[in-house]
């Protein structure tokens, strides 16, 4: 999940439902990003919410932040004083630095000086840029695999497979970021069970790469999604290795599952997870 710092003006302007940027509050509540704050930032949120709205609004908003798991308090270890034009803005830059954030969201021009710094590199995004980034969108491209082809256009993704690439599987754009209750990617979970996908090791990773690149703000838990993919692959490999024995039946699979559960710390599970994480990192999915 992306870590961001949000300037007070953006918070205050987005709170009311009628605000054109109310989606920021909705995304915060839906835990689509991690909001980094520190004491000074919270005090400023409170002060300006009181000024524009009321004490009750400020109190409720801060109570909500306290309960949200995706709000992270970062201690400030350095006062960098990076912004010379308005010293009050430095708390946001300091928080961005201490919290190792991906973006600082603001329309305030004082923050432009951060863009010129080589170190620390703090990415500043204005509202328009953040909206484009958050809502995401597909751009047309084709990915050629060994025995499959992925075509992306603005409407969605089509996977071509089969000997002549004459079979198709279509995924509309809206489905790509759907998750189940554990934040596993719904589409990856659905595809991993398909027979035709079993010999296409890279297809699911290719798909994840397109999804993450096109919709950078999402709540998919990629590591767990792909751990599950690798686990199921492992099970089916075991199954195919010994079809003559008791294996092959459902109870045998369950039996293997139990053994694996018991040996959770065994090397192969560790390797499995490391392999998943390496691949996801290599492709910049996480």
């Amino acid at each position, binding site marked *: 999940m992306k870590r961001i710092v949000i300037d007070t*003006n953006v918070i205050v*302007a987005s709170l009311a439902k*009628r*605000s054109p940027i109310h989606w920021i509050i909705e995304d915060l*509540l839906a835990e689509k990003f991690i909001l980094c704050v520190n004491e000074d930032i919270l005090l400023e949120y409170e*002060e300006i919410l009181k000024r524009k709205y009321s004490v009750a609004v400020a109190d409720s908003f801060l109570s909500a932040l306290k309960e949200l798991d995706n709000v992270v308090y970062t201690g400030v270890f350095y006062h960098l004083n990076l912004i010379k034009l308005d010293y*009050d803005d430095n708390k946001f830059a300091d928080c961005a630095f201490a919290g190792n954030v991906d973006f600082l969201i603001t329309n305030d*021009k004082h923050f432009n000086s951060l863009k010129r710094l080589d170190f620390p590199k703090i990415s500043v995004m204005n509202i328009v840029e953040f909206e484009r980034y958050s809502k995401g969108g597909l751009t047309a491209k084709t990915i050629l695999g060994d025995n499959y082809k992925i075509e992306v256009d603005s409407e969605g993704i089509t996977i071509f497979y089969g000997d002549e690439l004459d079979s198709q599987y279509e995924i509309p754009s809206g489905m790509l970021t759907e998750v189940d209750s554990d934040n596993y990617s719904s589409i990856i979970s659905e595809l991993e069970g398909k027979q035709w996908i079993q010999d296409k090791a890279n297809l699911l990773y290719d798909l994840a790469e397109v999804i993450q690149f096109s919709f950078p703000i999402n709540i998919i838990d990629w590591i767990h999604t792909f751990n599950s993919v690798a686990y199921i692959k492992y099970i089916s490999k075991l199954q195919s290795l010994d079809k003559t024995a008791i294996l092959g039946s459902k109870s045998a699979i369950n039996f293997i599952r139990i053994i694996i559960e018991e040996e959770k710390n065994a090397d192969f599970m560790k390797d499995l997870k490391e392999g998943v994480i390496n691949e996801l990192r290599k492709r910049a999915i996480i």
Partner: protein
Amino acid sequence: MTATQKPFSNIQLELLKLFPHNLNESDVKAIKKMLAKYFMEKAITEADKIAEEKGYTSEVMMSWLNEDNQ
């Protein structure tokens, strides 16, 4: 006689009554989420009411983006 500060607030007492036992992690998470939602909706509803009263249109709110807070 001097007034004594009560050790717990009304909500703390209520929560203490409700949860004498340890809850599992996912229950705690769900309750925190419900509380967050409740408070955020309260803040939004109240903000909408005040916006109506004070005539904050969407244009006014967008103009706040470039304001100097000090």
